[in-house]
Structures are given as C-alpha cells and as structure tokens.
C-alpha cells in the first residue's frame, strides 16, 4: 500500500494560501458574488473534466471529481466568509476579550501564550500557534496590521485541515475495503457535508480536530497493517499534535489501545513482543509530552484539570438538565424535525435531531430559500438511516472481518462520545455536531461499503439518489449562503 504523498498536502496548503492572498490582494475577500462565481466556474470545470473521461476509469475520476469539488466548496466558503461570521466564541479583536481572537492576538502581538486560563485561554495551543504563524506570514506579505485580518488569516489552517481530510479519503477507503462506487459515495458524503466547510471557514480548532481524528484513525489502521517504526513514529506525532490541538482527540486512543493490545497479544503468542513494547514506549515518550505539556502547564499554574471545559451554570438558558434523559438521548423529536431545518439553541434538547441539523447547518439561521435546507435535511436524514442500516448490516451478516469492525467501532465511539459529552455537560451547545465532525468519515465509508456489498438494487438506487440529492443541495446551499 502506497503512503499518501505528503506533497499533496503541501500543495494543498500553498494553494489555499495562494487563494487567500489573491482574494485579499484583489480586495474581494468577503465578496460572495465574485467568489461564488469563481466557485461555479471551477465546479463547472470539474464537471467538464469528469465528462471528458475518455475511456479512463469513470469511478476513479468521479471520486477525484467529488474530492476536488468538495475542496472548491471548502475554500470558496472560507474565502467568502469573514472570521466573525458564523463563528463560535470568537470574542472581540482585543487581547483582553478572552475569545479565540484574543488567543491569536496574544500570540501575535505579545509573542507568548496566554498568562491566564480564563474563557477560551484554557484551550490547547496548537491551532493558535499554527494560525498565528500563518497569519504573521500572510499579513507581512500584505502589509496589514489590522486585528481583524490578523485573526482572519488563521482560517487558512482550518480550511487546510478540512480539505486535508479529503486527501485522506483515498488511503482510508483502500485500507477499509471500500471499493468501486462505494468510494464515490464515501467521498460525496464527506466532501459535501456542510459542517465540514462551515468548520473550515472558522477561526477555531474544530476543523483541525476533525483532521487529526481522521489521521489518527488512518494511521492506527496503517500501524495495524504494518507495525513498523515509521508508522509508530507518525502515529505518535499525530497523537501529540492532536492532543495539543484538543484533549478530546484522545478519544481515538481507545481505538488505538485496542489495536495495540491486540497486536501485543499476537506478538506474545508468536514472538517479537519486546520490540513491539519498545515501539509502544517510544510512542508514549513522544505523544504524551507533546500532547500534554500545555495541560500540565495549566494544571500547575491554574489547577486546571485535564478534561476542563468552560462551565455554564444551571441558570443558563442553554441548560437542559431538567429535560428527561430519555427525551434528550433516546427519542426522536419529530415535531422539532418537521418544524424547522435549523436548530434553536435556546430550546432544543433532543440529541439525535440536534446532531442531524447541526451537521448540516451548524447552530445558525440562513436566509436561503427554504426548499434547499429542507431538501438537504431530508437527504441528510436518509443518509443517516443508510448509516444505521450499514452498521446493522455489518454486524448482522457477521461482516466483522476486516475493516468493518473498525469502521463500526470508531463510528460508535464517536457517537458515544457525543452522548457522553451532552450527558456530562447538559447544555444545548454541547450537542453541536462541530464536536463530532469526524463521525462522517466512518459513516461515509460504511455507506459506501453497504452500497457495494448490500447486493440489493433498490438499496443501491436509494443510496445513489440520496447522495446525489445531498451533493446538489449542499452545493446550492453553499452558493446561496451570504
């Protein structure tokens, strides 16, 4: 199995950087009209390229086309959306406000990490470090010192992260046995998920967490296939950087631990456990310090616990602790689902519905013709059902051989994490899909594999129609959003 070429990631990064610079230089940043026009042209170009397949593998081209189109959406959205639009906890563009902007500006202006852990300063620093470096470079080129643009440039990291996930899809599909048109389904679901490009246009660590979770999943599977030094070192580095981005990336450690234990057990039976143990030790020696140094710093300075999150109180209008647990977690609030496609953070309490809606629209309202979000929601619901059917099918037909069990395991792990987080922090904002974006990766691959192995013509047609509808509505939605 070929490794994914690192040059593609470098190319991607510089392409996004170039686009950002170009848009800033042309003075059309935030000008949705021109950017959307460019997006339409590019999407059209991709479509023409696909149609000119001329005897080559149509499925492979479709896969590439969806990935490319997805990147166009991600980059286009990032360029047409200012960092203060549809942001979360950004705060004022000052050092003292305590939001994400403040964190970035502290690094840029003061050249040091925040000296408190108040408000958003408790967050792990990797995104802010990377974002501030990129911002300094970009704004130096553009001779700009405005606080807004200093913060805005950090979106390049988010956009890169969300697009980089699409580059991981090919090796993931390969390693998980998703073949043929199933890969196209997986690519379509992942590339066109609105939550993904919404995160890519934000100045916080959501997209980077999404990217790292994907890399951790991929790299763990690669280690499973070939437990050599390269893979363990990459995995350790990935874990370190992931945890340095957000501690919750440590969720994937549960999956990795199972794989590690399984491999260790095999080595005990067949020999070679000592060398493997050494690799694990190396893994720990790299990943733990890299991932936890900031947490240790904050623990000693501010007595901040490892799993600390900003606390709201039960007086908050977002508090949902009084709502019955069953209604919060285990039933489907169909009345809410039928009422509006958007979440209402002030009143919604049902996790399944909130996850579905926020996966498509975040926690925001949009002034787009209502048919588009409604159709997008319907397609999203349909694909959610497909995912559930895929999980059931994978378990029922005892297809737990190979990568089915990994995909199901990781998907269920992500879902359980969403449940746990909302249970632990019973506030409506805890349900936001932006904390669980990674879920789309195993979901898309399972849907793709179900398509290939389901064997049922009706099911294949349904999945195809739903995916096509999802893609079309997502594109329309992205182009209509202001």
């Amino acid at each position, binding site marked *: 199995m070929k490794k994914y070429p690192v040059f593609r990631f470098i190319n991607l990064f510089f392409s996004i950087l170039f686009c950002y610079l170009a848009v800033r230089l042309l003075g059309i940043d935030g000008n949705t009209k021109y950017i959307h026009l460019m997006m339409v042209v590019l999407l059209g170009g991709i479509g023409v390229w696909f149609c000119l397949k001329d005897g080559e593998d149509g499925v492979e081209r479709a896969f590439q086309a969806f990935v490319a189109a997805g990147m166009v959406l991600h980059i286009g959205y990032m360029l047409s959306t200012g960092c203060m639009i549809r942001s979360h906890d950004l705060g004022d563009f000052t050092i003292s406000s305590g939001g994400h902007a403040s964190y970035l500006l502290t690094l840029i202006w003061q050249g040091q990490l925040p000296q408190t852990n108040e408000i958003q300063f408790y967050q792990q620093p990797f995104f802010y470090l990377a974002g501030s470096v990129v911002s300094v470079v970009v704004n130096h080129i553009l001779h700009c010192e405005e606080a807004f643009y200093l913060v805005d440039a950090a979106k390049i990291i988010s956009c890169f992260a969300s697009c980089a996930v699409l580059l991981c899809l090919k090796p993931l599909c390969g390693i998980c046995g998703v073949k043929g048109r199933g890969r196209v389904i997986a690519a379509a679901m992942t590339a066109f998920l609105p939550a993904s490009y919404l995160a890519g246009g934000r100045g916080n660590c959501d997209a980077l967490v999404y990217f790292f979770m994907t890399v951790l999943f991929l790299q763990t599977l690669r280690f499973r296939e070939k437990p050599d030094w390269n893979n363990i070192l990459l995995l350790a580095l990935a874990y370190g950087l992931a945890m340095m981005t957000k501690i919750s990336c440590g969720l994937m450690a549960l999956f990795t631990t199972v794989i590690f234990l399984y491999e260790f057990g095999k080595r005990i039976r067949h020999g070679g456990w000592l060398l493997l143990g050494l690799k694990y030790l190396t893994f720990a020696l790299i990943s733990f310090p890299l991932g936890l140094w900031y947490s240790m710093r904050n623990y000693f300075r501010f007595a901040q616990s490892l799993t600390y999150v900003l606390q709201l109180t039960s007086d908050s209008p977002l508090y949902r602790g*009084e709502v*019955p*647990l*069953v*209604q919060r977690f*285990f*039933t489907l609030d169909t009345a809410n689902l039928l009422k509006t496609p958007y979440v209402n953070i002030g009143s919604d309490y049902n996790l399944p519905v909130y996850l579905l809606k926020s996966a498509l629209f975040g926690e925001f309202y949009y002034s787009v013709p209502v048919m588009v979000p409604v159709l997008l929601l319907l397609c999203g619901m349909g694909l959610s059902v497909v995912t559930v059917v895929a999980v059931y099918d994978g378990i029922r037909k005892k297809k737990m051989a190979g990568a089915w069990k990994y995909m199901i395991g990781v998907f269920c792990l992500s879902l359980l994490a969403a449940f746990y987080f909302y249970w632990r922090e019973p506030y409506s904002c805890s349900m936001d899909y932006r904390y669980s974006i990674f879920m789309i990766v195993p979901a898309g691959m399972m849907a793709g594999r179900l398509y290939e192995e389901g064997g049922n013509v009706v099911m294949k047609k349904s999945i195809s129609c739903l995916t096509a509808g999802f893609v079309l509505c997502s594109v329309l939605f992205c182009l209509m959003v202001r």
Partner: protein
Amino acid sequence: MNGKNYLSIIILTLFYAFLLFYRIGCPDAPESFLKLTASEQNAIQLDFGKNVRISEMEVYLGYQSNRTFSVWFYEENGESWMKLQEEQKIKSPFCWNSTCIDIGKASRYLYLASCDEEAQIHEIVFLDEKGNRILPVNVGEYPMLFDEQELYPEYATYYYNSMFDEIYHGRTAYELIHDLPLYEISHPPLGKLMISLGIRFFGMTPFGWRFSSAVMGILLVPVIYCFAWKLWHDSRVALFCSILHCTEFMHFTLSRIATIDIHIAFFVIQMFLFMYCFLGQWFGTKENRKKEFVWLLLCGVSTGCAIATKWTGFYAAAGLAVLLFMALAYRLKTGKWNKTERSHCVFLAAVCLVCFIVIPFAIYMGSYLPYLSRNSGKGLLTIVIENAQFMLDYHRAVKTAHPFESLWYEWVIDRRPLWDSVTRFADGTISSISTFGNPLILWSGIAAVIYNIYLFFLKKEKRALFLSVAYFSMLIPWLFVHRTVFIYQYFICTIFLILIIGNALVHRRKKYEMSFFLCLSVLLFLMFYPQLSGMQVPVDYTRHLLQWFPTWKFV
C-alpha cells in the same frame, strides 16, 4: 388443550393476580360518617380544651362531591365568633381532602357548618403548623367523625384515595348499594353493579371499590390464553400472547382502578372469542352442531353484558355482524346448498336473532332493575329509554377541554398518557399513575396490523381477516366521535393488537423473535412498573427514564 395448557394458565393467572392485588388499595378507610345539613342546629362545635393553632383540616368526604363548609373560630378577646373569610370547598368524594384553615393565632373552639343541603363526612383530622394531630376534647359528641383517626395517612396517595373516574363510578356503586340517588348515569349500570359487588364484600375502601376491576383483569388472562389457543392451537403462541397481555400497561392500570373499561373489555373479548368458536364450528365438521348454538348463546350473553356496561359494546356488536355476514357470504359462495344446509341456516338465523337481539335486550333491561326504586311511578322501559336519551345527549355535549384528552390517531402512537394520580413526597420521591399503552406493543402493532392486512389480501388468511375486523371495529367508530376522549378507549384494540402481533410472528416463523419480543416487553413493564402501580420512586427516575416524550407527563 391438555394438562400442560391448564397448568400454564393457572400459574400465569395466579402470578398475575398477585401482581395486580399487590398494594392495589388500602383495605381500610373511614366508613362511619356524619351527615351535616345546612341547618344551624346540625353544625359541629368543637372544643380543643385549650388554645391551639390549627393549620389544616383533613376531611374524608362521603359520596357527595364539591361540598362547601363555613369555618368559625372563637375569638377570646372579643368573646365572639370569627368566620374564616373563605368558605372551604371540599371536592373529592372518598378522598382525604386537605384544606388550610390557619388564622395565624390560637383558638380553643371551632364551629363547622355545611353550606349545602346535605354533606356526608366520614372523618376529620386537624393538624397544627408542625403537622401534629389535634383531637378535640368533645369527640364523644361526634363519634362518627373522630373514631377512625388512625386511618389518616401521612401522604394521601392512590392507595388511600379515589383517583380519576373512581369519583364517579365508585361513588355510584356506593349509591347503588345504599339506595341513594345515582350520580353517574352516563353509562349503563352493569359495570357499576359489578363494582358494587366488591364494595359489598370489602366495604367502601379503595380495596373494595377496585376489587371487581382486579378480578376482571385477572380473568382476562385465561380468556386471552384460550383465545390464542383457539386461533393457533399452539401452546407456545398462546403463552406468548398471554404473557404479552400481562405486560400490557393499560391492562394493568385499568385492572387497578374502579372504572368500567376493564369490565367491557372482558365482555368484548369474550364476544369475539365465542364468535370465533362459532365460526370454527360452523365451517368445521358437521358433527355436534349443538355446539354452534352454545357458542352463539354465549356470544349473545357477552354482547348483552358488554352493551349493558358501556355503549362501546355496540361497536363490537357491529364487528360481530360484519364477521357473521362475511361468513354467510362466503358460505353462499362456496358451500353446497342442500335442503339440510338451508334449513340449518334458517334455524341459525333465528338463533342469532334471539342471541343478539332478545338476550342482550333482556340483559340490558335487567341491568336497570336497581333504578326502579329510584324512579317510582315509571316503568322499566321508560327508565331505560329516558336514560338512553340522557346518555346520548350527554356524550354529544362532552367537549370540555381536558389536559390529557387525545384523539384516536394519538392513541395509535401512544402519544398522550392519561395521568390518573400523583403524590409528591418530601424526600424527593413520587407516586404517580398513568394510563397508557406499552409502547413496544402499540408501535410494533402498527406494523403488525399492516402485515396482517397483507396476509389477508395476498394470502387469504382468515385468522388475519378475523383479527383485523375485530381491531378496526373497535377503532373506526372513534374517528367519528368528536367529544372529549382519552387513551383508555383504545384498550380493547390493544388486546387485539397482541393477537395480531402473535399472528404476524407466527407467520414469520423465527423462533427467537417471539422470545426476544417478549423479553423486551417484560423489561419495559418492569421499567414502567412504578408509573403503572403508583410505587414510590425517586422523581429523577420517573423524569429522566420514563418521560420519553414531552407529551408523557408523569411528574
């Protein structure tokens, strides 16, 4: 059926009887009473021996509801009687009614007078601000009011009080026994007569007035077993249906409340059971044709009892008619019509006339016999017709909004339970009872009904037809009823749903599915048991685990 079947029936019935009777209601309640009138001479003057500050007055009211009393305290300084500004409204019959009469200071004497022509009080308990009981020193003057003080409970839960429509049916059953004017006459009398049997044996206590419902609920278990056995001749399926029925929520709750729904369910199920037996006999071998008449007779008696309990028995009767005529049409189409057959059918028609018109009419009329003594000068037929007119007018006019009313399509999806009773305890626990269906049975029942219809239309399965007609005959009429209704009207349909589910699973022929379904149903029953039985549990348990939907209000 063999010995194994009978043993299963007996064991299941006994077990369910224990479950039903466990804490169904207190076997004791204040029974001696004093009748107050509006006359001053008939008022109560109580002497507490010294100045005491009375905070609350707990009154166990008799059979009349909504009684008003005026309360006076003796003002020592002014040497005069001071009337409590608000008159005290005591609402619920056969319930401990709490009323605050705290005047903010102590007094030695209290004067209680009825504002109504007549008020029956069984017991009064006075409490100070700390909740301690205070007994007047002159209790000897009013022994009936203070002779059962030990029966006053710390918390007046369902166990000690009447709940929901028991204030009507239980009360009217009491009135039937004591020859009092009848309050609840919006349904025919048989159900209330049956409730009164329990009161005769065990007294006007919660146990007494719920006894007959419990017996009906217990008897339904072997009836369901027999019905399922008749349908499939399979012990496993019969046991499955019976146990599933035992885990049906509404069956449990309605068997523990003195209303008439369990009674009519008992009769309606028998109607369809006997009709099935008759049809099986009619289409079966020609030996022992006398059995056909026996089944028809039993069916007719059940029909009469059903209609004499509640007019929804007419819905079931219509269902029987549909089945009978469908069977007749089928016989006409496929049968060999020789002279013997024709004369047998004519004879059967005559028997049907007797069994479904004459006998039910007689039973219906007979159920009104206790009304004769209350309507002197009127004939029985006049009384029956007048009451029928009243019932018709009443049921047309009942459109008052109720927080727990629901329409037929809401019953099917179990949307809005009926909240019967709630008591909140100081330690953060709650005792709450609701009437609603087992969601597993109701929701999977929807799929099973559709599958059943498919079985009939595509595979011409007659059992499926029979069960579908039975189910829809009890549901469809409610589409046209526009009065205030509640989910318990769907109870009889849930019994047929259980049989329909059984039929669906039998056709699927997957052994593990029945066991799995049953285990799930039992688990749900155990989980919801506190909400069905009024068992005291932490509020959080009910709120977080049982309130599945916003419309399910249990706390």
